[in-house]
């Protein structure tokens, strides 16, 4: 390890997080399921094919335009399950709450969790609550785990991208990351910036119902579109070409990114998915996506290539080309 202490970079979702996983976690816990490093593990248990995942939420601020730590905690786990083609069913919720936290704010968080759980059609079936002395945690942290059934014929995973496939995104990028930063710093308060936190399981079902052969689903959360595409390129040993012009982005997000000097390609999303599908089926899948509330601005943004495996290349609007690398360093800590 480069550092002898944990630094914020290690939680960024980028290269340092990968290093932590590869050097500390995998050598001890490694097994065929964990080693795949997918959004959730998929395995057979008692004749059923299940997806299982877990995620912790430490976002700061806990309330932000478009959601709060509660809605994020449900969406995050629902989406991680959905990214394997699973139908999310049951979630656990664990709370770590700082002494002195307002019951009223907890109620507000629980209300939004209830609302998203209803929308996603999942149930919270087990839970835990711990309270720690003032200063031992920052307000409230939430962990959620979830399971869901994966239909027998579905095999969707980061290692399945094939040369010739099309790369789709379900909508605008960077909304969540920019919103959190702005809310934290009190910037652009009168702008239409809003987190995209949303459960994607119904969108995923719509896409699966087209009968198309979907190779990869991934939700580009921490590290953003750039990091997730790099992970897919490495997992599948393919190259990915993307077209700057085709990537949907809200004008207010673009403006805020320019002012803050942040690259939206690396900013987190909490309600978007990347789908990699055979080129011949791309239009049908896109059409299905655009019929759903969270896929209206879906777009084809690139192609999977054979040469230069592991690399992601951007064709810039003005006609140039450049490498898109993984996130290095902390672009912004505590976004989810």
């Amino acid at each position, binding site marked *: 390890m480069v550092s002898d202490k944990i630094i914020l970079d290690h939680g960024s979702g980028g*290269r340092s997080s990968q290093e932590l996983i590869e050097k500390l976690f995998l050598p001890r816990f490694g097994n065929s399921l964990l080693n795949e490093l997918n959004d959730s593990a998929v395995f057979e248990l008692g004749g059923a094919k299940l997806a299982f995942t877990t995620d912790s939420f430490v976002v700061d601020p806990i309330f932000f335009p478009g959601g709060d730590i509660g809605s994020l905690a449900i969406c995050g786990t629902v989406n991680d399950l959905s990214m394997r083609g699973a139908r999310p069913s049951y979630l656990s919720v664990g709370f770590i709450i700082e002494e002195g936290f307002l019951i009223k704010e907890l109620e507000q968080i629980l209300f939004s969790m209830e609302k998203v759980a209803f929308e996603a059609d999942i149930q919270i079936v087990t839970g835990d609550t711990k309270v720690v002395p003032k200063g031992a945690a920052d307000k409230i942290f939430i962990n959620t785990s979830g399971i869901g059934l994966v239909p027998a014929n579905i095999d969707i995973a980061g290692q399945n991208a094939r040369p010739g496939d099309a790369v789709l995104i379900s909508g605008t990028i960077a909304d969540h990351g920019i919103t959190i930063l702005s809310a934290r710093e009190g910037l652009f308060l009168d702008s239409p910036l809003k987190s995209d936190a949303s459960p994607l399981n119904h969108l995923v079902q719509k896409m699966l119902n087209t009968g198309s052969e979907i190779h990869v689903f991934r939700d580009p959360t921490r590290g953003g579109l750039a990091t997730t595409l790099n992970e897919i390129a490495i997992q599948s040993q393919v190259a990915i070409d993307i077209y700057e*012009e085709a990537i949907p982005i809200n004008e207010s997000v*673009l403006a805020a990114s*320019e002012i803050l000097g942040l690259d939206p390609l690396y900013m987190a999303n909490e309600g978007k998915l990347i789908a990699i599908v055979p080129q011949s089926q791309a239009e049908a899948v896109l059409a299905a996506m655009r019929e759903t509330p969270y896929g209206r601005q879906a777009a084809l943004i690139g192609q999977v290539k054979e040469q230069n495996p592991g690399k992601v*290349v951007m064709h810039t609007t*003005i*006609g140039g080309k*450049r490498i898109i*690398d993984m996130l290095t*360093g902390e672009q912004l800590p505590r976004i989810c």
Partner: protein
Amino acid sequence: MKHLSEYRDKHIAKKLIDAIWDLSETPVRLMEVCGSHTVSIFRHGIRQMLPETIQLISGPGCPVCVTARAEIDRAIVLSSYPEVIITTFGDMIRVPGSLSTLQKQRAGGADVRVVYSSFDALKTACENPKKTVVFLAIGFETTAPAIAATVLEAKRIKIDNFFILSAHKLLPPALTALLNSDRLNIQGFIYPGHVTTIIGTLAYEQIAQKHGIPGVVCGFEPIDILETIFMLIRQIEQGETTVEIQYKRGATATGNLRATEVLNQVFITCDSNWRGLGLIPESGLTLRDEYRSFAAEDYFDLKVQPAKDHPDCVCGEVICGTKNPAECRFYRKVCTPQNPIGPCMVSTEGTCAAYYKYYIA
């Protein structure tokens, strides 16, 4: 953002690129001296679209990269004092000092905070009256006026727990030092739009007259950069040596007189150490006597061991444009943005980091 999309229009870009290809005959090396230009050139893939006759070199334009190691070491010493809160701009916390970084100090318990403006640092001081807040001030003429304004405000509100550790740099003396050292072989300067909005073009006029090198003040969008390259090539091919402004929507020949007035009210020039370039006379800024009560170096004992850069790191030559990152034996092998050996790999605006992040070999 329609305004922005116009400066990224692919049809206008195509016309400019065609015009550059038509015009360019003489092999030239053009130097940009602003980190934002470096990033924009790489982000939009501009290098690969130019004819082989035009080579773009990244000069000493990244304020993080040119901050001397000793200046980081002093901030690191300060961060170890229990009553001190260090505030600075984002990239600075990752710059390697001799033994540590501010980021590592933070993981070890030091109170190091990233701020977006020097006024946020002053606010931190107001909110933490029992602590001592030190702002590690870096940057060129662009950021210095805002920091000067913060010092004026600190004096007005009579705050006594706020200090500045000034590592400010001035661009023209560095360019002059480079030109006098004969280390440079360049035929044109792409001048920084933002610095010019403050200082105007007088210093560039002197460079054009004395050293015979033309320059164009450039904006930060791809169309700005392509138009600037076109303007420079036109001058060079026609044998002209003038200073032109492409970035007319931001910069003027006179600059921002009010900003320079505030800057000069609070700061005075001093000799300054640049990473890679060494000591350059009158190339830094320090607080004037009337404002010395805000000088961290006066209040604290900040003696540090003389700092040494890694002997094989070529950042100094990269900053001067005499080597490109791929010519460094550490590049990509041991020196990465995650584990930077030299400053050009730390900042997102550093030449090595830009090569690492964007460049298709």
